[in-house]
């Protein structure tokens, strides 16, 4: 059964329709990429999937027992965060919040989880550093570590490689793939990097101005649309 089921979803912002009549589903352990040109409503759709935005019509249902507090989320950075006084550890720990329920303080297990996430992303040495003094790439990794702490069954990523250099981008994608394969955590990713999307994903949702493609990655590669986009973006 699907962990997220979208039926006839229409989304809008500022009175404009961003996405209309969309149907797709995300499977357990899926690797699901949302691609498309700017302004086709990728981020808006992601916000709706996360329950941050209401759908104008249609329905988005979490299925298969997936609860909100099993979701990790890596958002694009906000203005507030750029000058926020917080240590790296404090930021990552807040990823464990959703498992705490009403219990007020973090447990030793939570702290271990944080250590492990920092280890994985090789940012352990930044632990006591101030978040706002880090470079863009380091900040991105801190936010990813926080998302990892929160993600039990699903990891949602919005343009995760913004601010990362090419080598870190490659490392990042292989890390996400590994996590998806080994721990069985489903991944939903919005990206403008069509090549990486095709390389790693299992399903692709390509949003167009008034239309959308949804299918497996193989189907996408064989489609007219896929040929056009993958061909058009090749630099060699």
């Amino acid at each position, binding site marked *: 059964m699907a962990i997220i089921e979208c039926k006839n979803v229409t989304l809008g912002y500022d009175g404009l329709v961003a996405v209309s009549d969309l149907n797709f589903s995300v499977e357990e352990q899926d690797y699901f990429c949302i691609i498309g040109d700017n302004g086709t409503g990728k981020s808006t759709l992601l916000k709706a999937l996360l329950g*941050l935005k209401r759908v104008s019509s249609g329905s988005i249902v979490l299925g298969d027992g997936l*609860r*909100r507090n099993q*979701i990790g*989320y890596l958002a694009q950075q906000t203005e507030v965060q750029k000058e926020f*006084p*917080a240590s790296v550890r404090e930021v990552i720990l*807040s990823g464990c919040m959703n498992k705490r329920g009403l219990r007020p303080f973090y447990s030793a297990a939570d702290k271990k989880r944080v250590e492990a996430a920092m280890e994985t992303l090789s940012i352990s040495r930044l632990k006591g550093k101030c978040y706002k003094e880090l470079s863009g790439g380091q900040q991105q990794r801190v936010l990813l570590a926080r998302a990892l702490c929160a993600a039990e069954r699903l990891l949602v990523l919005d343009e995760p490689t913004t601010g990362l250099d090419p080598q870190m981008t490659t490392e990042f994608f292989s890390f996400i793939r590994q996590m998806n394969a080994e721990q069985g955590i489903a991944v939903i990713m919005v990206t403008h990097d069509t090549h990486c999307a095709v390389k790693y994903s299992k399903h692709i949702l390509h949003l167009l101005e008034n239309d959308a493609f949804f299918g497996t990655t193989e189907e996408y590669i064989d489609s007219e649309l896929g040929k056009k986009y993958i061909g058009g973006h090749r630099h060699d």
Partner: protein
Amino acid sequence: MINTILQMFSYTFILRAVVVGGLVALCASLLGVSLVLKRYAMIGDGLSHVGFGALAVATAMNWAPLEVTIPVVVAAAFLLLRLSDNSKIKGDSAIAMIATGSLALGIMIASKSTGMNTDIYNYLFGSILAMSRSDVLLSLVLSAAVLILFVLFYNKIFAVTFDESFAKATGTKAEIYNMLLALLTAVTIVLGMRMMGALLISSLIIFPALTSMRLCKSFRSVTICSAVISVFCVLMGIALSFVYSTPTGASIVTVNIGVFILFSIMALVKKLR
């Protein structure tokens, strides 16, 4: 020096002011860190004006001031929170409108009641003499409640302050904690208003947070540092007002300005080295 301090504490009203002022300063500074970072500082200012209006009505009608003002300001806090979260209405202007509106209404009511001119002055700029014994007790209980709730929800307040969308997306009910923050702020402002004055109480929320952000690097150190700064400034301010017979609220703010400048210089020196 020691004589002055001993002499100061021999007055009951000073003792009351120190107790209530210290507690309110503590609450205000803890909440202030979150409010400043969330860009909610204007809400504090707006609430104090609403508080002034409510206080004027309560006095004119001969009702118990704190017991009437607190619920009114709490209601206003929820309203202002909704306004500033709703991007369609210009949050800032809406807050300013409500603030100045209730200030004006308060002044109208106060001026029509008998012998209110000194009272208006006291409400606007604060008076150290305003505290009765029962006020002190109520302040003790309420500020203890604010402190306990703050400590219990500290981690959640951090999560919601740092990244509300993340908190919401991952299953934390951010709205509830925003409301909690608004509620605690409303209570704190009403408690501190009569000593600090409606025009100056929001300084207790804003100054210590901004001051400690000059130097501190983590949320926890900012929080602790602003608590210490805030209580220190209130005590120094009360002493200053006692020695030079200046208004208490203004004296406290003056000390806060001094500490802010000091911290700014220290941050600058640290940067240059």
